[in-house]
């Protein structure tokens, strides 16, 4: 049996294999993507119709956007671990792959999925609700940083939930306390990008806060995940 060019085990190649496997599985089953898109489109239409009958303040519109992203992400991102547990493939994966590679692969897949959600619902939401675009690049940076941190937290909560034998319905309840500080910073930072007079460094601090939160969650996940995965 050949063992590749170096013959050395690589955590990166194992994580990459898990990412590719999850993308391939998602393209064939569309479990996560369908639930996310269904939720997002339904929510956007309801919010859009409701907004058309009155003019809610910008902060309410931003809150609606983040609430939609939060639940859309959580309805889809939980599948990465719950699907493995429910189908029994988790045992095969545990026996074959190191926990670090599983976390990295699943996190990358969720980041990709979150990017798709944000790219689809972000512009549509802004158009439907008629929000201003005073600082478009700052807005994109805030949305990206918030979405990355949201995804990091969703991934580790999904792992805990899958091992606890829980179902998707519990996902929001478990994720809420972890994500509350993130959502507050994301709301505030998004509001700042709507005001042209706000200096760039003020927004940069908020983006830094969002990214720092995401990095902290990744660091905690790297420590905790092997214990969660091996339970």
């Amino acid at each position, binding site marked *: *049996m*050949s*063992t*590749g*060019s170096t013959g*050395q*085990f*690589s955590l990166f*190649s*194992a994580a990459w*294999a*898990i990412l590719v*496997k999850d993308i*391939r*599985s998602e393209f*064939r*089953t569309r479990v996560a993507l369908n639930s996310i898109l269904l939720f997002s489109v339904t929510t956007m239409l309801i919010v859009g119709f409701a907004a058309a009958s009155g003019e809610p303040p910008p902060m309410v519109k931003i809150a609606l956007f983040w609430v939609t992203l939060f639940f859309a992400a959580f309805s889809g991102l939980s599948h990465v671990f719950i699907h493995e547990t429910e*189908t*029994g*493939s988790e*045992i*095969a*994966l*545990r*026996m*074959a*792959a*190191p926990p670090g*590679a599983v976390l990295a692969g699943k996190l990358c897949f969720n980041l990709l999925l979150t990017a798709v959600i944000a790219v689809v619902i972000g512009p549509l939401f802004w158009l439907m609700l008629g929000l201003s675009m005073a600082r478009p690049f700052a807005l994109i940076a805030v949305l990206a940083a918030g979405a990355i941190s949201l995804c990091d937290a969703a991934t580790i909560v999904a792992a805990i939930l899958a091992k606890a034998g829980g179902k998707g319905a519990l996902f929001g309840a478990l994720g809420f306390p972890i994500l509350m500080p993130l959502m507050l910073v994301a709301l505030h930072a998004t509001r700042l990008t709507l005001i042209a007079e706000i200096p760039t460094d003020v927004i940069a601090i908020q983006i830094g806060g969002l990214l720092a939160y995401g990095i902290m969650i990744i660091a905690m996940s790297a420590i905790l995940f092997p214990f969660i995965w*091996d339970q």
Partner: protein
Amino acid sequence: MLERACESNVMLSDEEQKAQLAIRFQSVTKRFERRIVLRNLSLAVTEHQTLVVAGPNGSGKSTLLKLAAGLIRPSAGEISITVAGRRLNPSAARFAIGYISPELALYNELTAVENLTFFATVRGLHLSHDELAGLLSRVGLKGRGRDCVSDFSSGMRQRLKLACAVLHHPPILLFDEPTSYLDEEGAGLVQEILEKHRLLGVAMIATNEPREREWGTDVYWINRPI
């Protein structure tokens, strides 16, 4: 063939302690909430041994294999896996274990080749096209490599599980009900794998089939029916 009973809480012999390749249970107890499944169990499986774990349904055969694979932890006692003289805990020794059980499933949405390639890659191996074809042929799935596992019969899935369990040539095989869903030819394949493996490593099989008990060098009874 040596037969042992679960009640015997024996100390491990010097020979068993010094083995270069071994699975050792020392005073292991496993309980699920209040129910004790395995109580104060000590045993060792060393080189060239194939231990058949036998017993009625619910006696703890699968639990014993899961403990050896590191999929669950003992409530008390210690389990160790020795590979090339290095003593490891079961979860750190998974690179050296080939495990199948009725609860383990492969990815239904992937093809047989995609499953094998995936499990090889996450184990740090690269299998060539010929090696993949050879492996599929060995388990009787020649020509079915491009078919999705969801289109496979239960017996074919079991054959693919066998291929995934042995693709990394593990020195330790842990087979829980290995002939489930298999026809005569498939059962013969399992027997052949175990016989060849006996020359190289150790194996544990959990089964209720009288015929499969003959495949072991030792039989370990849990709650043997009188």
